[in-house]
């Protein structure tokens, strides 16, 4: 067996640090790696494909009559709510997979390579946006199949979908932080759902805020998810909703500004 390379005579001239352009290229490579893994393990798509189907159908027929009088009149309210809930739930996976990755031997190798330290983290977050796109598409498709006809038409649906994807990406930083800090992936999952359930259910996603007791209504009103749901409802209904869109995007920006530095710092300490 021969190793056919030219002889190592002189030492390479090393770089002292990684340029931003290279860091970006490392991020894209790591994202590509995540996507390859997804292709190899199609069962990972179960949650992004099945969950929107099950939730949409279940909630529509379960609550439709009680909340809006009929399924058809509930769908314009429900689909944006389900969309936000499904996509944000999908973002939990970011933290879980990050933890699993960091526990594996391959992570040690990545840490010994002369690459941007942040690339495994930024690559994972980037690859996960594809999951959000799929969850979004599935939710709308199932909605259309059971009679959802948004007044905003395709442009409204696309605008609403994009807003949800951007916000879910922002929220995934929270789960990424849990992923980096937690001891194992089961802990990440458990903690993430503790964050996720109040955030998504204690909002106007499924039921009108007016039906809630005062203290809960107060929380639901300030909950950024409420504003996101309201913004998506407006966009898909073709209503101008600058205020709620601005609040949703602002909330997303705040989350990124707080959690991205925390996550990166915690990650770098371990990486």
């Amino acid at each position: 067996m021969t190793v056919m390379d030219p002889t190592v005579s002189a030492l390479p001239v090393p770089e002292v640090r990684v340029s931003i352009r290279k860091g970006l290229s490392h991020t894209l490579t790591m994202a590509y790696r995540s996507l390859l893994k997804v292709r190899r393990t199609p069962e990972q798509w179960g949650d992004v494909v099945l969950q929107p189907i099950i939730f949409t159908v279940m909630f529509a027929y379960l609550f439709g009559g009680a909340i809006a009088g009929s399924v058809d009149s509930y769908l314009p309210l429900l689909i944006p709510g389900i969309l936000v809930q499904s996509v944000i739930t999908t973002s939990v996976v970011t933290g879980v997979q990050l933890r699993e990755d960091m526990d594996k031997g391959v992570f040690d190798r990545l840490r010994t390579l002369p690459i941007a330290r942040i690339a495994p983290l930024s690559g994972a977050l980037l690859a996960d946006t594809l999951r959000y796109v799929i969850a979004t598409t599935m939710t709308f498709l199932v909605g259309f199949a059971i009679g959802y006809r948004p007044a905003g038409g395709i442009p409204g649906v696309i605008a609403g979908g994009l807003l949800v994807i951007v916000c879910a990406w922002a929220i995934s930083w929270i789960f990424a932080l849990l992923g980096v800090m937690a001891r194992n992936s089961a802990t990440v999952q458990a903690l993430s759902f503790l964050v996720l359930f109040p955030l998504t259910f204690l909002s106007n996603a499924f039921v009108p805020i007016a039906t809630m007791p005062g203290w809960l209504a107060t929380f639901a009103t300030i909950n950024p998810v409420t504003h996101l749901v309201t913004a998506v409802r407006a966009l898909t209904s073709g209503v101008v909703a600058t205020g709620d869109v601005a609040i949703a995007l602002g909330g997303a920006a705040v989350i990124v500004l707080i959690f991205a530095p925390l996550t990166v710092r915690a990650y770098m300490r371990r990486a």
Partner: protein
Amino acid sequence: MSIQGPEWAIEADGLVKVFGDNRAVDGVDLRVARGSIYGVLGPNGAGKTTTISVLATLLKPDGGRGRIFGHDVVAEPHVVRSLIGVTGQYASVDEQLSGTENLVIFGVLLGLGWREAKRKAATLLESFELTDAAGKPVAKYSGGMRRRLDLAASLIVRPPLIFLDEPTTGLDPKTRGQMWQIIRDLVRDGSTVLLTTQYLDEADQLADRIAVIDRGRVVAEGTADELKASVGTASLDLRLGDMTQAETALEVAARVLGSQGTFTPEHARITAPMADPDRVTDLLVALRERGVHLTELSVQKPTLDEVFLTITGHGVEPEADAREGVAA
């Protein structure tokens, strides 16, 4: 050989790494010359892997200093990473991805273009006899195949220094031989290799110099010959027909071999280090003259146990127990 740059591939001075109250690495000093194979020998838990982790920038030392080709591992980690390749005890490749995918991704991360990375992956897979399995996920590889892929991943850009953490532990003899040949080829081509091992035989076969590590410290250092001289080149095993003759036998052995043997009453066995195997004849003659009756005799190469026993004053406990179990 003309030397460009620093003379030492690795310089470690008083390296310390503490986990809680466990001083895993407790003042390790190492000097590894460029272009050599350096063996770090020790039992499980001696601090071998931790030492490598510190030198490979995976762990920050709690004390002391490590330099790779003159670059400090703490102050210039990025530079150090561009000079090293690390192959761990556990295959550090992606199990869900195929051999090719793993190598291509590492190649691209290391700055090769996609096309070049693919070509490089194909040549490496071929030279490590993995072409047939190139498209299979690594999870389906055997232990030996994984180890080879893991090493291939460390060689994509041919780093001048390669750390191999127990490269052959758990491999069958044939695969182990292949691995040894690969390591020799690497050094012939100009790389420096630091390998850890639990096997004296492996260090003996490969390493130009060996450091014996125990409880986080270097307890002996030198060439294989120097180390073996300190424990004798062989070990003599005698089984007595009559237990009451043990004292006489020990006395004769001490006189003829010049070393103190140990008597194990349960097996009526005497074990003694021996610098020169030719003395066996003299010993047998001397024993017959004294009327000592033997039932069994064997000469063995010194084992890691004996190196340890001699150098540290305590054996490799769990493995020593296992050997007793087999012998009994």
